[in-house]
């Protein structure tokens, strides 16, 4: 209820608009794309932006606009699937361990250890383990979000369980499941949504950084990160290559940031 109200603030609306724009492009864009994302067009080697190729063509003669539109989908997958999956697992573990003290200390230590690795180093190590690729990105993000959300939920469980209304329910005879479902989860929702938006923007970064380091999406498939990387390796010869995908990353991250900021501002007020 309050969340939906917060989302109607102008700042949140702007954020939603930006994210929605990228979402729409990712869903509808590939249908409108002039070429296939992998299609190599004869003779169109590294052509600058022109009416026939709005964002130019790349080193192996592919239309960058078409690739960009198709590449958005992968980021959307990472943002709207991997993050929520990790978040869901994290929330569940957080609830279980914090409320029933099931292996609470052990879980916290594991979370500590996972969070102790800098994200990218963790990603590099993991990619050595399972090889580079889309799955690696997804697994890295899921593995990272589990402790992030697990901790968040743990903190909020500990806060909410001290609240008088929870005590009142407990005194009236409510069991733990009842309290979790009726009180703890609904009242943890606000910090969770803020974190969700933050995590989503971080996920875009992770995808881009991993692809930039060559351990993310692999050729010939496009993602925003791999397109930026392709563009930056030819920065002097074809500065136009990275512009489109870079702008989209900015728009996406900016949108998610605005949403999370307005959510947390509303939360604070």
């Amino acid at each position, binding site marked *: 209820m309050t969340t939906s109200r917060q989302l109607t603030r102008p700042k949140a609306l702007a954020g939603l608009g930006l994210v929605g724009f990228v979402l729409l492009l990712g869903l509808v864009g590939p249908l409108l794309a002039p070429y296939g994302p992998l299609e190599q067009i004869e003779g169109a080697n590294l052509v600058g932006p022109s009416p026939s190729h709005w964002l130019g063509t790349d080193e192996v003669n592919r239309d960058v606009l078409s690739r960009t539109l198709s590449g958005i989908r992968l980021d959307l997958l990472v943002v709207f699937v991997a993050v929520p999956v990790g978040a869901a697992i994290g929330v569940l573990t957080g609830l279980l361990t914090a409320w029933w003290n099931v292996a609470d200390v052990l879980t916290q230590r594991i979370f500590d250890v996972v969070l102790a690795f800098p994200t990218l180093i963790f990603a*590099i*190590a993991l990619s050595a383990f399972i090889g580079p690729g889309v799955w690696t990105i997804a697994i890295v993000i899921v593995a990272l979000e589990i402790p992030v959300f697990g901790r968040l939920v743990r903190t909020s469980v500990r806060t909410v369980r001290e609240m008088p209304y929870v005590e009142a329910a407990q005194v009236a005879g409510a069991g733990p499941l009842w309290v979790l479902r009726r009180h703890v989860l609904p009242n943890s929702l606000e910090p969770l949504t803020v974190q969700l938006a933050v995590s989503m923007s971080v996920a875009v970064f992770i995808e881009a950084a991993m692809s930039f380091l060559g351990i993310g999406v692999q050729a010939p498939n496009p993602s925003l990160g791999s397109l930026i990387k392709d563009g930056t390796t030819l920065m002097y010869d074809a500065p136009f290559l990275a512009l489109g995908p870079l702008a989209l990353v900015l728009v996406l991250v900016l949108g998610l940031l605005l949403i999370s900021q307005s959510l947390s501002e509303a939360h604070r007020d």
Partner: protein
Amino acid sequence: MLSYLVRRIPSAVGVLFAASFLIFLMLRLIPGDPVDALAGQDATQESRDAIRADLGLDKPFWSQYVSWLGGLFRLDLGQSYRIGGDVGDLLRNGALNTVVLTVAALLIALVLALVTSLVAVIRDSRWLNAALNAVNTIGLALPTFASGLLLVLVFAVVFPLLPSGGTPPEGYLARPDISVQYLLLPAFCLALPVWAGLSRFLTEALRSQLRQPYITTARAAGVSRTRLVVRHALPNALPSAVTVLGIQVGTLLGGAVLVEQIFTWPGLGSLIELAISGRDYPVVQVLLLLSVAVFVVTQLLTDVLQAWLDPRIRIGGAR
């Protein structure tokens, strides 16, 4: 306060131990045998066995783990399989570069964050806030490699004012003036997101401190706004900012991998990539453990700093 610190040490050590075991185990689960990489095409089984024995890989897992841990306590980090040489020697140079880079970035981020958030809160003017907010958000939304390449393009290629990458040729101390120029771009690039995050947090923290009753008390006593912000609100906002900064150190190390690549800064970030792809276990496990240790120590330092900044923790609640 000392007991407060002492209480935290066992859990920190626990994390380190757990991490060391996890790292050791994970690396041995990675497909690929380092002996294959070392022995040539025509190597005989004997020479392969000799190499295996030479590396200690013929011993059982636990004994390998224990002997590695034992080595760590004696500061003997082992021998690199592929790159060659003592792991400690390999790391020393890279570690120096990475430390210089990250510390410089941390300082830049800290100073910039302090200055911008203090100015923003003291001035409290609408357009200044909007401008800082915009810069902030862009700093947060711009991927590190994008900002890095932009910096190279602008300051090293279009206007060749600063070196495009690399470390100072004569070391850091021989010519500090030159060193600063080499450090400026990569450190700033690394500092940018940290600065943005920190200054955003600090501005908010200062603003929320300014809403506290004790500020009203001081204001009612006629203390000027600048003093209110700098002398009253800031010391109260710092402890939580220190926590945020502690978390950012992790971000900084991760970012260092990217920045080192962009600015060809020969630090641990590039070494770890090389070592992982070459299955150079002794190097990889030390590097991974090092990054965990940095994190753990940062957490401890954060706690100590926080206690030092906050008398409620330092002196305790005794009346």
